[in-house]
């Protein structure tokens, strides 16, 4: 084998290798990224309401701090609630107001559920995000005579985050939109048989 053909062979091998490295890198980026929404949303895990990541400017108040969304919609207030289903099912409840509200539930791979306030029953929207095991448990222990208005969603993964978006149609509704994001509650659903230790209100 001459040096020249060796060189060509080595270059071809390099191109194939480059393709493999390219595919592996692109697929690995979401798992190693530190500035992605999944990692940044973790900060909201200890809160019982969404962490506002894009606030709308309200005249007369200090300018809201810049969130980390790269190109946010200037007319939409955004908040995130991170969950870890090991702590128990996550309950996201929102009251319907005159503003358009939507809740999307994201896992590491992307959004697996989204709902808007049009799905609300009697003015409130209750989402319960749970694992398959927690879902089966809730079904098994459900009271037949009790009407349940919760929207139950089985999450594909243990960790994720819910995104609350409220649209301010007019600049005068900016303050209301910010408040509507904060008014959503994100709480860990208490077990069905609360003991004194974990019966403390968490939502």
């Amino acid at each position: 084998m001459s040096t020249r053909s060796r060189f060509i062979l080595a270059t071809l091998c390099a191109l194939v290798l480059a393709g493999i490295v390219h595919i592996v890198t692109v697929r690995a980026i979401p798992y190693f990224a530190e500035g992605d929404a999944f990692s940044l949303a973790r900060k909201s895990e200890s809160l019982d309401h969404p962490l506002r990541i894009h606030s709308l400017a309200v005249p007369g108040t200090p300018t809201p701090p810049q969130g980390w969304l790269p190109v946010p919609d200037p007319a939409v207030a955004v908040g995130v609630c991170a969950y870890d289903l090991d702590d128990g099912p996550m309950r996201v409840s929102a009251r319907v107001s005159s503003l358009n509200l939507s809740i999307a539930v994201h896992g590491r791979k992307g959004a697996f559920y989204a709902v808007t306030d049009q799905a609300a029953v009697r003015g409130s929207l209750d989402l319960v995000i749970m694992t398959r095991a927690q879902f089966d448990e809730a079904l098994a222990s459900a009271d037949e005579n009790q009407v349940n208005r919760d929207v139950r969603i089985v999450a594909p993964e243990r960790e994720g985050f819910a995104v609350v978006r409220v649209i301010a149609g007019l600049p005068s509704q900016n303050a209301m939109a910010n408040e509507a994001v904060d008014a959503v509650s994100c709480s860990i659903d208490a077990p069905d048989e609360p003991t004194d230790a974990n019966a403390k209100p968490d939502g």
Partner: protein
Amino acid sequence: MNALSRIMTGAIGARTRRAPAHTDESLGERSARIGGILGGFLRRTSRTGFVLYALALGAALGLASADFATSGGYPVGGTTIGAWTAWAKTGAVDADPYSRAVNARRGEIPLAIGEGLLLTAATDDAGRRLDAACTYAVGGAVPPARAWTLAIGGRGAVDPATKPIREAFTSTEVLREADDRFVITIGQEVQSGNWLPMPHPRGPVRLALRLYDTPVAASVGSLDRSTVPAITRLGCK
């Protein structure tokens, strides 16, 4: 002790052997000898050398192309409708790996299919790049949605000191004509009606139309040119 003495004699022997080479050789002999050593080295290590070359080139090309493909906007996954591109699946669980990588690198939370749809435009209807030095009329129809916003953005962060007075129109605040249609004029100069100022004095700009709570997110293929706003260039400075 024995080992130490052997090392010492070895070191002395090496020094005595090398010493004449430095003193007796002429320049030509030395270069020939170096060439011979180099050739022998290449012959002996050519396989290793080519493997190293292939590994280095493969890694460099792979990493550079992956960085290039995920550093800007979404490289694939959009549906083109006239001047607009609809990004329906960038937030879904079955999004393509490039969209997921772009989202992860930018910290973006894309709209989910049940939530809304993002459409972007970087050119006008004639295919010319949107430029901050020009004036555009954007108007006509908008796909069915409960609410929409039309925002403008340029490259890079907006300086807070020169932040434009308006960055977007919402479906609630846009002024409509008698037939429910609307025209938004985008330009540097103040205009009557719906005026959206340019975010930068010069350079390329982009439009983002976000439809909220829209049935078309699940059927982007049903959109055509007549259902999205037309972008017409009115003139340039």
